[in-house]
Structure formats: C-alpha cells, structure tokens
C-alpha cells in the first residue's frame, strides 16, 4: 500500500448529513465495501491493563490489515506487541514472619560485574558449583514482609507477534484458508499454523466450518528449567529449553435463524503435550502444626492436557438495539471445568454514536493437582501447583464501549472494563497461621481500549 494511497484514503471527520443514515450495508450506493468489492480494512487498537495492588500492568498495541479481492480472496496481516511489568504472585503462601526467596541473577556464562540489585532485592553469595568461580556464584534474594502475599516485583517482559492468513473460495467450496503466526518474548516462543474449510448451504443461511490448528512452543526461562518439585534455588539450571506441542480442531455451525437472529455453535477439541509448567512458580511446604512455610518447591504439571469446549453465540437485532449472548462450557483432562456467559447490548444513538454495555460471568473448578500449599512430612504428590489460574474461582467483567462512526468507512471506539476474580481465601482445611491469611491470589484489574478501524480502496 503506497503512502500516497493511504493518505488519500484517510477520512475527513465529518458529521453525516441528516438525510444520511449510517450503515455498512453491503452493495450500498455510497460506499463499495463488502462481498463483491475489492477493498482493504485496517484496524489499530491499544490495550492498557492494570491490576490492583501494584501487580501486573501491560500495554499492548495491535494492528491488523485485511485485503479483500472482489472474487472473495482475502489476505490478512497482523502484528501485536506488548510490554508487561509489575509484581506477580510467586505461588508461596503468606506468613506472619518475613520470607526470603532466591532466583538466579545473571546470564549463564556472563562475566559482568553486579554492582547493585533492583526490585527491592539483594545480591547474595552462593556456594559455587564444581568448576565455578566463587565470584560467579551469585544469586538474587528478595524478602517479603510478614502478612503480605508473596510477589516477585522483578517481573517484566516484552513480546512481539506476527500473523498471516490467506483464504479464498475454491471451485464449489465456499472458503478455504491457511494461516500462520510467530510470537516471541525474552523467555518464550510460539509458532502457530492453521487451516480451515467452510461451506454454505440453505441459500447461505447455514455455514459449516472445520479448522485445524497446531502450535509449537518453546520455554527458555531466565535461570533455566528447574527440576520439578525441587527446592527453590538461585543456581543456573543445566536444562535451558523445554518444548510443548498443541494440536486441535474447531467444528463450527453458523445459522441465520431468522431475519433478526444469527446463531453460531462451535465444538473445539485440543491436545497439548510437553512442558506446561510455569518455570518461575513455586509452592510452599508448610509445617504440619504451625502452618509456617518451611521451604519453597518448584511446581509440576502433567505433560499431557486434553480439552473440549462447546461455544454458543446468539446475535439478535431487535430494532433499536443489537443483543449478543454467548455461553461456553469447557472441560479438560486436568479436572478443570468452566462455564462462561457473556451478554452485550449495542444501542445505536442516532447515526453517529453507539453505546455498548456488556457483562461477563465466569466460573472454573480447580485442577486436580491444585493445592494452596503442601504439608511437610506428607509424601510429595507427582504434580502440584498453587497457581490461582488453575484454582477454583469465579470472575465478573463489567464493560462499556462507546463507538463513533466518523463516516461510512471508519470508526473510532473506546472501551473500559473492570475484571474481578473471587475465590475462597480461607479453605476449610487451613490450619495454624494459615487461617489468619487470605490464601486466594486472584486478580482485580482495569482495562482500557482505544481502537480505530477504517475501510479504503
């Protein structure tokens, strides 16, 4: 796309004339966008995310360009970047005494001199491993005050991801497509590929689709891959990388039920094999009488995970407002089941604005190997994690979006969301000092989006 073409297509911001009604009606007289026309669509958005309590914050710009040919061929390009930082729970339980945690301090083989520490931590001297210079055996130690949820404040990362997709009709087949993506951050890489086929029936009232997707992930955490359920230590681990593969499919049915009602029903199946641990996350082993944390062990999750979900979405145009109601049921081999319900109502305010409030309700059960903590002197289980994301909780999202139709070919929108997780911070079997603390480490966060979308030739 030449710069001149882009400049020429930038829309002037004008109020639509009173006689004009805003619509993107395909084949409309004033704007040749939609099936049967050649046009491009550019979407740009910025996401800002902030958790309460000084925890994670993130900023994520996204852009997507889709080029449509008149005969139904389509090419899409996407790019996302994100910068994440802040404090994240490390998985240990709170204590009524201060706790120390250690992590590796510098890159393996580096001879750089450490002159100071960051993130409220200190440099400590470790016993050197055989053959290692004493001066090179350094670790980072941070202290969590009494009665606070243990978090690691030194968490920060940058990520960039790209995606490419192609789809087109083929003979009597309505649509086939291929796509791929690549995502990279300092300690993780993901390569994805997908293909899909879809077919229309019943005068295009029915669309059946099948998509296959695969992914190859590599985890190369700072400090190396820890031995699962070993004691947390600041040594650089000898295994540096572990991989995971994922293969899945989605079978979908889209049905125009009536003039006003569109429905989609999807069944998704997914299988993951390989390294699925969070290499930075630990679980506390507590004293069987006092409940005081005695040591921290690296977590361990099974290497296989199979999941299924059914997703049902309904869009209803009831005149002044368009309603969207969706439900999802999810179940996996880790013992997690979840239910999701989302509802939004888009209310057009004249031709230029719309207001869209929405709510989401979510509930999940805990993984079979989720534990708030492990108890000393009991046999270690094969798998254990205290990661809240695999625990039982419910979550609510309240959001409101306002959109501005700048003209028939572009739109600007802003959206604010509040997301809150609620779980049981006082499990029934908590004992000793554990009873004094809230053991649930779920998040509360505020999210803002700004987005701009425009069509051009």
């Amino acid at each position, binding site marked *: 796309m030449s710069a001149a073409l882009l400049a020429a297509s930038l829309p002037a911001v004008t109020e639509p004339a009173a006689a004009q009604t805003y619509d*993107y009606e395909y084949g409309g007289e004033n704007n040749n966008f939609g099936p049967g026309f050649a046009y491009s669509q550019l979407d*740009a*958005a910025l996401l800002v995310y902030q958790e309460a309590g000084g925890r994670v914050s993130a900023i994520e710009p*996204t852009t*997507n360009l889709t080029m449509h040919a008149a005969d139904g061929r389509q090419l899409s390009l996407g790019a*996302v970047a994100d910068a994440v930082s802040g404090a994240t729970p490390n998985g240990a339980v709170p204590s009524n005494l201060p706790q120390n945690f250690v992590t590796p301090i510098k890159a393996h083989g580096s001879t750089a001199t450490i002159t100071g520490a960051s993130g409220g931590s200190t440099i400590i001297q470790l016993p050197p491993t055989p053959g290692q210079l004493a001066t090179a055996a350094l670790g980072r130690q941070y202290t969590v005050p009494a009665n606070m949820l243990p978090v690691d404040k030194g968490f920060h990362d940058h990520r960039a*991801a790209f995606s490419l*997709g192609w789809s087109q009709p083929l003979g009597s087949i309505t649509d086939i497509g291929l*796509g791929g993506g690549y995502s990279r951050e300092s300690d993780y890489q*993901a390569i*994805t590929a*997908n293909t899909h086929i879809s077919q229309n*029936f*019943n*005068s*295009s009232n*029915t669309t*059946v*689709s099948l*998509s296959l*997707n695969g*992914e190859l992930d590599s985890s190369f955490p700072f400090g190396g891959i820890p031995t699962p359920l070993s004691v947390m230590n600041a040594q650089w681990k000898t295994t540096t990388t572990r991989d995971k593969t*994922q293969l*899945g499919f*989605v079978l979908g*049915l889209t*049905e*125009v039920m*009536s*003039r006003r009602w*569109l429905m*989609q*029903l999807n069944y*998704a199946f997914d299988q*993951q094999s390989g390294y699925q641990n969070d290499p930075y996350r630990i679980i506390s082993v507590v004293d069987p009488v006092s409940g005081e944390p005695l040591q921290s062990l690296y977590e361990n999750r099974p290497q296989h995970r199979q*999941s*299924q*979900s*059914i*997703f049902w979405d309904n869009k209803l*145009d009831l005149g002044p407002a*368009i309603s969207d109601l969706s439900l*999802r*049921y*999810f*179940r996996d081999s*880790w013992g*997690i089941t*979840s239910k*999701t319900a989302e509802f939004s109502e*888009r209310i057009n305010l004249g031709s230029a604005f*719309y207001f869209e409030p929405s709510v989401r309700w979510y509930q*999940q059960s805990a993984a079979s190997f989720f534990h708030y903590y492990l108890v000393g002197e009991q046999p270690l289980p094969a798998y254990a994690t205290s990661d809240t*994301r695999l625990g039982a909780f419910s979550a609510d999202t309240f959001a409101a979006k306002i959109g501005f139709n700048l003209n028939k070919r572009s739109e600007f929108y802003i*959206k604010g969301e509040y997301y809150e*997780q609620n779980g049981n911070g006082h499990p029934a079997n908590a004992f000793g000092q554990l009873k004094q603390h809230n053991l649930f480490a779920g*998040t509360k*966060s505020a999210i803002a*989006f700004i987005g701009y*979308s425009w069509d051009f030739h």
Partner: protein
Amino acid sequence: MVPRRLKMLFLATMAASLGGCSSLGPKPWEKDLMAQHEMQVDPYPVLTAADDHIYFSKEASSGGRGFAGGGCGCN
C-alpha cells in the same frame, strides 16, 4: 469428557440444520439486517483477540470462539 446430553444436543442441532430444511431461515430478500457490520459473529476481531488474550492469561480455559487464525494462537 463433555457430558453426553450436551454432545447429543450439539449433534441434534447440527443435524437439524444440515437436514436440508430450507424452510428454516429467512429468504434472501429478508437478510437486510444480517448485512450490517455489527451483525457479524465477530465484528471487532482485534478487540476479541485482546480480550481473549487477557482471559487466557488469567484463567484456565481458552478458545471456543471462531475458527482459523482469528482464534487465539496463544494456547
């Protein structure tokens, strides 16, 4: 495993739609409302992808919606 009743309901719905019941659904001249941008199943894929990314990062479930590259590759 997904509960048997749910699976049967899913298959029954699909079968009913595919069973050549061309009487189900509007006639081509009744699809004016369906042509609206906001009546697409996912009219703002960039927003959906960003929301899905947040939920995948903070929850145990993922995916379910849509197909092809538009779905969450961050599994």
